[in-house]
């Protein structure tokens, strides 16, 4: 157990103490205690930057289940450290924000911070472990804590709906990913990601390559809200705003991106990877930005915007894979660098935008964009934050979003030169789609900003009197936007400290050792195609925003019935109803039906064994001769059996059953079983007496007419059972393979058991245990009968004396 392991587990340990703080230190907001941890962790991880900058990595093993190869192995490289810094850094800011956002009187703070810390620890585990099984464990912990956080206000129905939906979708993906990990384990015989990367050639030639890749990508796409799995993210906006800012924009939704980046060395050399990842990303980007425009809720716009931006990052990660196919490394790895850079940028501006949305909600009482307006003068600081955030999101200078958008266009333009699968012409789609997506991004960004802060102030529509937020609430978003602005002016502070190590962990084999990726981000490239694309976005986007009311009708073209949400609802409700219908169909509650299934299964299984497996044979060799007595007894037995079935009165049936029993005793006599005959006679007598005792004295001695109605189904089933039993009897008495062990018993009954009656010696001596437990059975039956007759429970659950019978 090293400090590193402790760093990952510390949020979980810390979470144990939160309830005590929440309960015994009520005067201080619990968040202040929590705040200490992410700050300490952030400082700890910042100090590790020097290791990754030197191109080195840290690996530390803590044995967990060594016999299965599952160990808590921490592996620190550029990529993992970047995510760890995002998680702890934004985590600290979100905790600070939540202190002012959540009231300590009205909300239950203990559970909130326990879930949040649990999430933070899980997320650190996801990005820093090397063992896929441990990664999966932390992965599901993030799903679980996200579920708890979305459902924080569990009394609202929408919260519960959103939490369930996100859990179902992300756990579906998580389980797929587990399958992918297991396939990789089958191929490489190792759970370690390092080991897998070392065995890339083995993986590439294996049949499980494509299934493993698709399963892992399913996990990543569901978590990162890619098309068509993005539907859970807008519904997750029911969570408290700090949660939305932290989980659903900056960290958890990037876990999928982390997995794509982490497994790039394993899969990225295949053209399938390139196409699946980049196409999914670009489609998600356009789709998300297109749908963001029509939303009217601040957080819904931001949710769709997150979907779109994540799609952008994913498409760039896919495009960067082209570097593995061509010698021109620098040319294509720009996409990967841009992906990493935009990851950071998105965390800064989206985090601040969510916090701004939270402030507006907190200070006006609504998030509905149609009721807001004219807040510019009332909330100037929030307006400034939102302005920087939205302009950065739209990709305008002088903010960091502009830089990553330019790089995005560069990488998309370079995709057109890729000719994997020889569909070069399709490559043109990428820059076109990217440009269209960016236009929509511009439109919804402007809508978000101007419809909230400009226009007329409508105090009558707001629940509270709008005013500027308290200073504490503003600290976190101000820090984030300050970062967003400084990243534009000094983009290269991150180039070699963070981005370069991350890119070299994504493509560790691409360069020789001691060589470094050339990461230089500049504000101005000269008059390139990218600049004109941005200019086009501004022109078309502005025109589009100003005429928004005129072409809004385009959204009416898509019927509400065709949305993916509708599909999800139909699917879940349909599955519930379907399984209910199926269950209701066969679980009828009638004993008869269940017996029918059992007998039908017996007939089908045994019958097919007899027919298809050649189990049947017929031979009269070695069988005994049939005498006159047997024929007479057989006739008696068959008629008595028939009488039992066709009896009109209860009494006849009972007597006929007795006749069957006595005939059986006579058969025992003929077949030389004196003890059986004795027992059968006595027991049959007692049984008949019992039957008569129980039912003779009850009223309505006659069967009801309808109980004896002939049912063809029942007849066919019982005929089948009879035939199968007969055939089984004939088949097994016709093919004896081994002699009986009876000779042992007859030979040794006298000298070992000291008795001449072999049956009795077997019962009490050779196989005495049978007899002991048979006695136990009788005892239990007797006690049970006594209990049933003597005790009775009334409606209140108390035992009373049974009523006297007439």
């Amino acid at each position, binding site marked *: 157990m090293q400090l590193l392991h402790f760093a990952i587990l510390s949020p979980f340990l810390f979470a144990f103490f939160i309830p005590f703080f929440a309960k015994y230190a009520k005067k201080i907001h619990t968040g202040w205690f929590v705040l200490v941890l992410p700050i300490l962790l952030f400082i700890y991880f910042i100090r590790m930057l020097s290791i990754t900058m030197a191109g080195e990595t840290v690996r530390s093993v803590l044995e967990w289940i060594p016999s299965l190869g599952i160990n808590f192995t921490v592996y620190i490289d550029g990529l993992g450290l970047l995510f760890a810094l995002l998680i702890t850094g934004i985590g600290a800011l979100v905790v600070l924000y939540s202190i002012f956002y959540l009231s300590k009187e009205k909300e239950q703070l203990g559970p909130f911070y326990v879930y949040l810390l649990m999430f933070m620890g899980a997320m650190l585990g996801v990005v820093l472990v090397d063992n896929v099984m441990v990664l999966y464990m932390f992965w599901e912990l993030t799903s679980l804590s996200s579920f708890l956080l979305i459902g924080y206000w569990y009394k609202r129905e929408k919260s519960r709906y959103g939490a369930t939906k996100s859990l179902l979708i992300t756990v579906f993906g998580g389980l797929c990913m587990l399958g992918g990990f297991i396939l990789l384990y089958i191929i490489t015989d190792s759970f370690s990601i390092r080991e897998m990367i070392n065995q890339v050639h083995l993986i590439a030639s294996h049949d499980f390559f494509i299934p493993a890749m698709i399963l892992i990508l399913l996990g990543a796409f569901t978590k990162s809200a890619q098309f068509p799995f993005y539907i859970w993210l807008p519904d997750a906006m029911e969570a408290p705003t700090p949660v939305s800012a932290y989980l659903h924009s900056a960290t958890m939704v990037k876990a999928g991106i982390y997995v794509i980046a982490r497994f790039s060395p394993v899969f990225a050399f295949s053209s399938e990877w390139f196409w699946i990842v980049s196409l999914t990303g670009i489609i998600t980007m356009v789709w998300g930005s297109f749908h963001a425009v029509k939303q009217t809720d601040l957080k819904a716009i931001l949710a769709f915007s997150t979907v779109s931006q994540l799609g952008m990052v994913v498409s760039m990660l896919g495009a960067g894979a082209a570097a593995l196919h061509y010698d021109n490394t620098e040319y294509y790895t720009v996409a990967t660098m841009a992906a990493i850079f935009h990851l950071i940028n998105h965390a800064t501006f989206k985090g601040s935008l969510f916090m701004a949305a939270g402030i507006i909600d907190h200070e006006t009482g609504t998030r509905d964009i149609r009721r807001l307006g004219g807040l510019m003068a009332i909330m100037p600081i929030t307006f400034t934050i939102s302005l920087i955030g939205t302009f950065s999101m739209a990709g305008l200078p002088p903010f960091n979003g502009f830089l990553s958008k330019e790089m995005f266009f560069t990488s998309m333009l370079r995709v057109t030169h890729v000719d994997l699968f020889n569909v070069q012409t399709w490559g043109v789609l990428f820059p076109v789609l990217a440009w269209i997506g960016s236009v929509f991004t511009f439109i919804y960004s402007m809508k978000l900003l101007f419809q909230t802060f400009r226009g007329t102030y409508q105090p009558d529509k707001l629940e509270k009197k709008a005013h500027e937020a308290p200073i504490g609430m503003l600290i976190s978003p101000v820090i984030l936007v300050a970062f967003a602005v400084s990243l534009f002016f000094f983009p290269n502070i991150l180039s070699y400290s963070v981005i370069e190590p991350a890119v070299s962990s994504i493509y560790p084999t691409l360069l020789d050792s001691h060589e470094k990726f050339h990461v230089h981000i500049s504000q101005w490239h000269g008059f390139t195609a990218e600049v004109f694309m941005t200019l086009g976005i501004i022109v078309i986007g502005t025109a589009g925003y100003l005429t928004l009311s005129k072409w809004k009708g385009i959204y009416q073209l898509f019927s509400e019935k065709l949305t993916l949400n509708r599909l999800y609802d139909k699917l879940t409700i349909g599955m519930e109803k379907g399984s209910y219908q199926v269950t209701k169909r066969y679980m*009828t509650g009638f004993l008869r039906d269940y017996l029918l299934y059992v007998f039908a299964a017996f007939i089908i299984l045994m019958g097919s064994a007899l027919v298809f497996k050649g189990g049947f044979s017929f031979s009269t060799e070695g069988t005994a001769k049939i005498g006159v007595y047997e024929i007479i007894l057989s006739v008696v037995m068959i008629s008595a059996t028939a009488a039992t079935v066709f009896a009109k009165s209860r009494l006849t049936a009972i007597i006929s059953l007795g006749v069957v029993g006595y005939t059986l005793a006579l058969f025992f006599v003929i077949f030389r079983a004196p003890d059986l005959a004795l027992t059968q006679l006595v027991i049959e007598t007692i049984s008949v007496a019992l039957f008569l005792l129980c039912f003779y004295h009850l009223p309505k001695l006659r069967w009801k007419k309808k*109980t004896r109605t002939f049912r063809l189904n029942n007849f066919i089933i019982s005929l089948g059972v009879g035939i199968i039993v007969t055939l089984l009897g004939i088949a097994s008495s016709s093919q004896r393979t081994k002699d009986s062990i009876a000779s042992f018993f007859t030979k040794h009954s006298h000298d070992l058991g000291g008795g001449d009656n072999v049956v009795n010696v077997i019962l009490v001596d050779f196989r005495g245990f049978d007899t002991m437990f048979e006695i136990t*059975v009788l005892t239990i039956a007797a006690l049970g009968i006594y209990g049933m007759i003597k005790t009775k429970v009334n409606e209140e659950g108390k035992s009373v004396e049974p009523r006297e019978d007439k």
Partner: protein
Amino acid sequence: MEILMSVIAGIIFMAATYLLLSKSLLRVIIGTALLSHGVHLLLLTMGGLKKGAPPVLSEHAKAFVDPLPQALILTAIVISFGVTSFILVMAFRAYQELHTDDMDQMRGNDQHE
């Protein structure tokens, strides 16, 4: 002989199955009793029939019938008697409480769905 006995056992099984599938609780119980008769007969038949004297050594016969199936059947008879009497009394109590012998009316209600 074994083949004849197999056929008889089959007929008993058929009758028992038909009774088990009926509506009246008493008929179901009669069906189980009949079923155990069939099973006992089948057990004895599978051990081989009439291949010597009864398994009592003082008979001094050359061959004895197989004693093991007889011991097994003896155990089975006693157990099935215990079970039959138990369910018989249970049916009796059910009749006392529910005033019906009809399996369809004893079906659980749909409250728990």
